[in-house]
């Protein structure tokens, strides 16, 4: 199963809606490339929506961690929303759920980014 990535904006926040599997190979490479592009651009705050992702492996986890570190170093934020099923389990096993802020809905994630920006 391939991966579809849609990019949209909510104010200054970039939101990636993912659909499919993020596994080693073309899908994993596309995910990495998209995150790298965002990390290298002027975007600061990114939300990655996993609601429609059924599987992620270590290559996807690696891409996510690298982007998180890269965005954080640049003063930005990466937030994950809606990880479910096996994806959620992978996040727990790899401690990603404790490394990267994780929310169950987009509104809460956006609110947390706004409050962070307001406090800055």
């Amino acid at each position, binding site marked *: 199963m391939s991966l579809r990535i849609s990019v949209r904006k909510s104010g200054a926040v970039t939101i990636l809606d993912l659909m499919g599997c993020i596994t080693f190979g073309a899908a994993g490479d596309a995910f990495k490339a998209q995150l790298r592009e965002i990390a290298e651009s002027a975007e600061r705050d990114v939300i990655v929506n996993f609601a429609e992702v059924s599987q992620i492996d270590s290559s996807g986890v690696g891409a996510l961690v690298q982007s998180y570190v890269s965005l954080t170093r640049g003063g930005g934020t990466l937030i994950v929303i809606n990880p479910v099923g096996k994806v959620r389990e992978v996040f727990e*096993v790899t401690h990603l759920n404790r490394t990267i802020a994780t929310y169950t809905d987009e509104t809460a994630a956006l609110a947390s980014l706004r409050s962070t920006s307001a406090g800055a």
Partner: protein
Amino acid sequence: MRDAFPVATELCFGAYHIDLRTGELRKHGRKVRLAGRPFQILALLLEQPGELLTRKQLQERLWPRDTFVDFEHGVNAAVQTLRRALCDSHKKPRYVETLPRRGYRFIAAVETVPATAGRSPGSVVHQKEKTAAAARSDWIGQIAKICDDAGRNYVLLPITEEIFAEMNDCEAAKDDLGISLLVAAEKLLLVNCGTKVKILDARNPDLGCKVRILDGQFVGEKAFASRAHLSGLS
């Protein structure tokens, strides 16, 4: 009742060496972070291995009467930290067994460190490793399956025993980013339960084995699988 260790200050069990006088715990000679009540609970358990240490005894000895804290939560959290430091599991315990609603019991064999054995923790562990090597050389070449007693579908396999130690250090320090970075660098391999592995080395079987991964994303790679993550060994 088994022998207690009222005067011994250095003990070893599995791959661990504990110095009760200095408050240090080591695994394979590497220091494991464990302090405060989790360390004190371990010390109390080691006073009488094989015997029940009741929750009441724990409360009396470690929580002063004039402190108003949630003892139940405190003892559960401390035992959880202790288990993490020992890479132990409450469902399949190798060291600390829970006796529901009653207390805890230390179930592994405990040895005092003889005064003539020298004070180097490394030398003690090395001696134990040699003993274990003869016992499980028959595992080499066997096929085992990766499993997780917590019932998850995935486990993290370190690529070497050194990375295994680093992972434990991260877990003891609650360094979640450290764990995630080890996964990103593929020093910790995210492996499905049920993955087949071949045992390459079982010099320290109580701790784990060096294995070759036989299927899945990391087929062909070498890794170090803790004993708790290996099933099907005879």
